[in-house]
């Protein structure tokens, strides 16, 4: 049943509407149904517009839900026989995706062959879909999911940034300055009424990210670059470089407010994209030419790479040790680590491993969110 005329009484029709709304992902519980009956009893049902506004206030919890609600409401209470267009946002999404398709092709993901129908049928609603999306390997994302992930990552990184700021702020509070407290409370006869807290200096930390964009990383580098772009908009103290056979600073490109423009700029400048991998030489180049400027004792260095190196292991060993010495922490996030049965036995990874403070995975968004703990520990 999907129309109010299918029910004998108005109350039952309202219950039916509640079920209908739930089918489309709105969280309409019993309380919600009770409230909608109460609002109808206030006389709002006499005016269909007003009744729609009232139900919208009761059934929706976001702007997006309100837009969806209008369609459900219209179909259920007004017209019979029309269908809600489930692909309502598809045109916009396609348009947005087209804007970045050149960059996507550049890094080898523009050829995703999933048809629209397959995409829609795989889409689920609610928090479950978010969880699934977070856990989906970057190499298995289709274009729609990619867009959804972009939105989700923007939201989650923003929340992560807020949490980190708050916890760092909170961590600085609470330490009592005994001396100051005693001095301050002499006027109270020594009774500790006003406790004085220790004032701490702000410790600014930097984040340095080195992203591998060699051919073997093609499936991941595009998403990781997008992740860096989002991260850069919430953590100002980030420096980013891409490397494969040569190294390039991309921090300025990440400052672009438009992700499409950022990717376009990187694609115009990155001559080494999808080429071979010489991690050792690139890190050496970084140590020689950039390290003095971008590394200090408070820098957290993160290498995003699969570790499939074709250069000499001794060069990598020397470069990575130098990098470790100049960083507060050296972290390696490897997309291959998310694969079942993966072991870091390739020469590059084997060489780098003893010098690392942390070795984690970077194959999906969830693994990248682990960065929060690393940032908090630093």
């Amino acid at each position: 049943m999907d129309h109010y005329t299918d029910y004998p009484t108005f109350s039952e029709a309202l219950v039916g509407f509640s079920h209908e709304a739930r089918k489309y992902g709105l969280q309409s519980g019993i309380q919600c149904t009770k409230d909608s009956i109460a609002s109808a009893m206030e006389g709002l049902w006499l005016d269909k517009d007003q009744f729609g506004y009232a139900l919208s206030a009761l059934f929706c919890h976001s702007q997006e839900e309100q837009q969806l609600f209008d369609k459900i409401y219209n179909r259920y209470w007004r017209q019979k026989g029309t269908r809600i267009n489930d692909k309502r946002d598809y045109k916009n999404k396609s348009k947005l995706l087209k804007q970045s398709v050149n960059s996507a092709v550049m890094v080898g993901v523009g050829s995703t062959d999933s048809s629209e129908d397959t995409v829609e049928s795989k889409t689920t609603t609610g928090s479950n879909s978010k969880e699934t999306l977070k856990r989906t390997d970057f190499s298995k994302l289709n274009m729609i999911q990619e867009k959804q992930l972009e939105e989700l990552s923007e939201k989650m990184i923003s929340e992560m940034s807020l949490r980190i700021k708050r916890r760092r702020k909170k961590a600085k509070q609470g330490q009592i300055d005994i001396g100051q407290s005693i001095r301050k409370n002499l006027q109270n006869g020594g009774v500790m009424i006003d406790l004085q807290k220790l004032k701490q200096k702000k410790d600014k930390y930097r984040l340095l990210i080195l992203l591998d964009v060699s051919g073997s990383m093609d499936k991941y580098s595009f998403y990781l670059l997008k992740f860096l772009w989002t991260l850069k908009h919430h953590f100002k103290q980030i420096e980013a470089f891409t490397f494969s056979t040569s190294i390039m600073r991309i921090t300025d490109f990440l400052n672009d407010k438009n992700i499409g423009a950022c990717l376009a700029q990187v694609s115009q400048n990155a001559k080494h994209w999808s080429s071979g991998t010489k991690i050792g030489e690139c890190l050496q180049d970084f140590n020689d030419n950039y390290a003095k400027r971008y590394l200090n004792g408070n820098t957290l260095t993160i290498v995003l790479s699969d570790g499939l190196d074709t250069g000499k292991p001794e060069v990598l060993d020397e470069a990575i040790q130098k990098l470790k010495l100049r960083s507060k922490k050296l972290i390696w996030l490897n997309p291959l680590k998310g694969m079942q049965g993966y072991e870091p036995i390739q020469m590059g990874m084997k060489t780098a491993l003893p010098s690392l403070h942390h070795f984690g995975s970077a194959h999906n968004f969830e693994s990248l969110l682990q960065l929060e703990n690393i940032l908090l520990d630093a």
Partner: protein
Amino acid sequence: MFDNPKELIPVIDKLGYVIEEELATVLFLLLKLEKPLLLEGNPGVGKTQIAYILSDLMGYDLVRLQCYEGLDVNNAIYEWNYQKQLLAIKIHERGLKSEQETEDLIFGEEYLLKRPLLEAIDSDKRKVLLIDEIDRSDEEFEAFLLELLSDFQISIPELGTIQAKHKPIVILTSNRTRELSDALKRRCLYHWVNYPSIEKELKIIKKHIPDIESKLAEQIAAYVQQMRNLKLDKAPGIAETIDWAKGIAILQGQDNPIYNSLSCLLKSEHDMKLVTTELFS
């Protein structure tokens, strides 16, 4: 008091707020169902103002809790007056009161400092409670609010549960800098406050600056609408539009008052450059 949402529109209009039927219906529902109302929207669209208008409309005092990072129970609900408690202990040190009696005394209501939430529910008069920018507070604080929003009561371990004498009218606002929990949203009515349409913005300008020339007001409203379509760091809200209109009125008679008063509207160098290039070159 009101039998239909439409009755609210002229009354609220008289109080200086231009309201549409949709928001009037939501406010009508808020008054009838006595459920908290969550208002979400971009900064500067007039969310907070709605609470002030309701306070004027109903004749209830407004209690405002401004949320911020690290806001806790002590600042939002209650805190014990430690200084007073210490002094009381000192006074009763050599007295005849037993330890239990002293404890009962210093954990009595006399020693309780009421913060906005407790003040709103423990008052003899009905209040409008504005919990402003809830998205700035921590998730832990949101959890504290659940009991208040669903049952209009607050639990204080030393005193027990305090039930609202009069259910306050609760308005929560959020700029959506983070998603609020489902548990909190479920307890509230919801309304998304959008930027006003050009017609509504025109009405707002005229309401705040009645002497303004119609053509100038139209120009201002049209410019602001165009600016909101640009990728600005901070899109101008209604308050900025009014400030701009006032600025233009003050600079009237001088060279290019519209351009020269742009600083009332735009709050960053990037925005200024973008608007100058896109709309004034």
